[in-house]
């Protein structure tokens, strides 16, 4: 049995840990709220964008936009969005494993798979297993539209230059605070959002297009990709803070439990020491009497 002093020291250190995890939980909770607000603010934009794209896509049948064209998928670009920091439960690990599995399974289907990572954790995991062409660290901690737009432009350039025929983004979608959804989303070629049959029948309005459908498409399709990347970044950040909050919450709980157990052990040890001392005194007294 460890000595009294050792147990006391242990309790102290666990208490310190608990303090840290509690503080981290609070910080994540605050950041989560902000991230959630950002998503909610960005959603109408993304939704409207989709609506417009949809109404454009159904009218522009004969005149296919290069980014909408489905080519034979030989080269794939996989963009993996993770976080820069750890201590958020299975958030990064699950996503990295999914990416790893995906690459292994699909390796035979494609001639070449290019990997790009957003976030340090994903890069560190994947670089040892596969070749990561490019990493963008420090982008994900503060997502803003400009960086998403820059990234989108780079990807579109690569796509138009036929470096890859298909682009998939992999990220954790924010479902609830407790759970994240690992999401594979195809960015390119653009899959026009499917119009529901009902809305097509009644909602088929003849628009006046200015300057022309083609020119509008030229602008809107790349914008849509920017928006999708931006959305994925926001989702991932919110999911990260959610995951960290839950992880830190359970860590704090475990620490409290451990403190309870250690205190019990400490008290037992103390009791045992007292009993032992008493026994010694009593037996000493007995032997003098006898």
């Amino acid at each position: 049995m460890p000595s009294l002093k050792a147990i006391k020291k242990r309790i102290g250190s666990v208490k310190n840990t608990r303090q840290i995890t509690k503080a981290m939980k609070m910080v994540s909770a605050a950041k989560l709220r902000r991230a959630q607000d950002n998503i909610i603010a960005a959603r109408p934009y993304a939704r409207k964008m989709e609506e417009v794209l949809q109404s454009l896509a159904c009218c522009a049948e004969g005149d296919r936009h290069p980014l909408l064209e489905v080519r034979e998928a030989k080269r794939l670009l996989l963009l993996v969005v993770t976080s820069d920091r750890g201590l958020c439960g299975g958030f990064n690990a699950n996503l990295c494993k999914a990416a790893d599995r995906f690459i292994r399974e699909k390796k035979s289907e494609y001639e070449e798979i290019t990997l790009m990572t957003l976030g340090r954790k994903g890069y560190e995991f994947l670089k040892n297993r596969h070749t990561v062409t490019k990493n963008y660290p420090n982008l994900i901690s503060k997502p803003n539209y400009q960086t998403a737009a820059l990234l989108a432009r780079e990807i579109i350039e690569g796509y138009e230059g036929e470096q890859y025929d298909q682009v998939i983004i992999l990220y954790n979608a924010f479902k609830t605070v407790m759970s994240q959804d690992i999401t594979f989303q195809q960015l390119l070629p653009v899959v026009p959002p499917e119009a529901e049959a009902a809305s097509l029948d009644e909602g088929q309005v003849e628009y006046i297009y200015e300057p022309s459908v083609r020119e509008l498409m030229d602008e809107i399709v790349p914008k849509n990709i920017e928006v999708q990347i931006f959305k994925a970044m926001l989702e991932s950040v919110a999911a990260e803070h959610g995951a960290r909050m839950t992880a830190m919450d359970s860590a704090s709980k475990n620490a409290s439990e451990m403190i309870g157990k250690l205190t019990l052990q400490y008290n037992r040890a103390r009791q045992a020491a007292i009993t032992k001392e008493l026994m010694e005194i009593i037996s000493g007294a007995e032997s003098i009497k006898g």
Partner: protein
Amino acid sequence: MAEKMKLEIVTPYSKVLDEPVDEVTATGKLGEFGVLPGHAPLLTSLNIGELCYKQDGVTSCMALNWGYFEVRDDRIIVLVQTAERADEIDLERAKAALGRAEAKLKELSPEDKNFKVYEAALERALVRMQVASKAARK
């Protein structure tokens, strides 16, 4: 005019405006245009420019940065990267940006990749100043 249109201005960061209005004027790719209630469905892209809307006889303006404009059933949806109200514009900052952009443009040749970037910056600064000065005059 009893009829009103619903004007929504949405950016990636927030919904800037959602109000009934009487009249909207905006700068499109092909020039300035106005929209009144009962307009036919229209989809157009916007340049960097100002957007003014009239609401009960009061005209307000905003500085917009790239976006597009959809009219359908008296509902106007404007999707833009940024939208600033006249009173939100920092005139000093806009002036400084204008100076910076001008200086850069003088240095660069028109073929430079960054030329367009600074040209857009210049335009944005000009529009901001224009919108802000309109508000100040009122």
